[in-house]
């Protein structure tokens, strides 16, 4: 029993230590931002890698999320004769919650894991040490550009996701289930608020999620033991920690922004 409590305590202490180290790493990243500006080409290269290369998965998933959401809502709302509101409900759900959250989860799985694995392998093959010895600061050259790229890419990807979800909703609702096209768009534009839904819902949340996922991915890459097992574990931790952080942060942000 005592051993179990001791093990639980160790897990708690290790988790808190990781969070503390991650916070210190964030400070190091932010301090390195001015130095990393000279590596702007590297930031753009990473933006292409984590942003443009994630477009396919974001677009396909956005389309299907919008389609399934419309399908479910149509059947529920038809009970109350409110199918004309389906488009508006799809839009609000996507802007306020599903867009930023699902994009962030997909981003963590697609880009976050590859960032962690790439940095972890760079450490395992001494590439990070080699940079240090060539008098190139790896935080400014490797970590900060990837962090900034994630921060910039996430809001853009979220906008794409939302657009594709609305398109999916339109395809199912208007083209397949026969909701009037004018009603679909007019209800949506009448109810969606620029500040509450777009700025707070899409932009603010996605920026926060982008920062958290990129930070966790880069931190795990740098903190991992430079072994194949270490890299594998770090990659898994990136997905797990990012998913928990996204959902917990979503609750906190929603509570404050509503």
């Amino acid at each position, binding site marked *: 029993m005592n051993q179990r409590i001791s093990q639980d305590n160790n897990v708690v202490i290790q988790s808190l230590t990781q969070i503390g180290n991650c916070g210190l790493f964030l400070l190091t990243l932010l301090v390195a931002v001015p130095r990393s500006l000279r590596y702007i080409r590297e930031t753009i290269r990473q933006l292409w890698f984590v942003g443009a290369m994630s477009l396919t998965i974001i677009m396909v998933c956005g389309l299907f999320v919008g389609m399934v959401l419309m399908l479910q809502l149509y059947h529920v709302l038809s009970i109350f004769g409110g199918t004309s509101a389906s488009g508006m409900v799809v839009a609000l759900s996507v802007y306020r919650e599903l867009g930023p959250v699902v994009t962030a989860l997909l981003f963590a799985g697609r880009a976050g894991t590859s960032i962690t694995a790439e940095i972890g392998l760079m450490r395992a093959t*001494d590439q990070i*040490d080699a940079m240090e010895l*060539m008098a190139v600061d790896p935080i400014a050259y490797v970590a900060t550009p990837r962090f900034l790229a994630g921060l910039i890419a996430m809001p853009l990807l979220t906008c794409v996701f939302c657009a594709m979800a609305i398109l999916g909703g339109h395809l199912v609702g208007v083209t397949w289930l026969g909701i009037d096209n004018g009603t679909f768009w007019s209800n949506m534009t009448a109810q969606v608020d620029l500040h509450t839904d777009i700025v707070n819902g899409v932009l603010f949340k996605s920026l926060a999620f982008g920062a958290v996922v990129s930070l966790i991915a880069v931190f795990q890459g740098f903190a991992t033991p430079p072994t194949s097992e270490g890299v594998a574990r770090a990659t898994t931790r990136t997905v797990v920690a990012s998913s928990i952080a996204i959902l917990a942060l979503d609750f906190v942000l929603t509570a404050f922004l509503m």
Partner: protein
Amino acid sequence: MTDSVPATPDDSMLVRIRGLTTVLGGKTIFSDLDLDIPRGKITAIMGPSGTGKTTLLKHITGQMRADAGEIVVDGLNVAELSREKLYKLREGIGYLFQNSALLTDFDVFENVAFPLRQHTQLPEVLIRNLVLLKLQAVGLRGAAALMPSELSGGMARRVALARAIVFDPMLILYDEPFVGLDPVALNQVLKLIRTLNQTLGITSVLVAHELAAIRQIAQHVFLIANGKVVAQGDPKTIADDGSPWTRQFFGGEADGPVPFQYPAGDYAQALGFAGAAK
């Protein structure tokens, strides 16, 4: 605190290590170690595995801090340097990793050009010529467009060497440069190290186990064991100095001052024969 110490009376030493003490994870790696590396010479550092030879190189480059002692490189106390000054010092040091440590995103040309692009504003045509010059020196100008994954171990090491010398450094540290090389590749690397030393006067420090190779190029050998320099001298005669350390290391004896058994508790007790231990 000052960033530099007064020039040593003996300016012929590029690296001067005094009283180096390092403890890692409760294990003493170095204990009051003294070592001098002369300018313009090829110095070999040898010793059994796990004695801290690579750690010593990390101390010289300032990647690792010592618990006590002083490491002076070209008149600068490495431990007291600011980040900027340490990076400036590193621009004058080339480092050849055991696994080459080439940047896997870049081809051979870009790997060699990397330090130039990071630290200079040279026009592209000059960077191109400098890189091709260095690649020609290591015999790999024709491989400029290859990716690191397309290179053999020997080729990768030569590319890493071209990258290490791209700034014509005052000091090159070679971490086990001959490991895993076939005789042809080994001789190519040997020839390059010798040529760089003779033509450019670059001070070279080799961490290696291959005495036959060391005898061909090194002018001085340090044998490190138990955290100290246990023998040093001419590579052609050091094996005959009669000390138990050199006899075991160069004779390849399984047991001796470096024990065959890793320190452990009583064997009989570990097997469950508690009574037999007494």
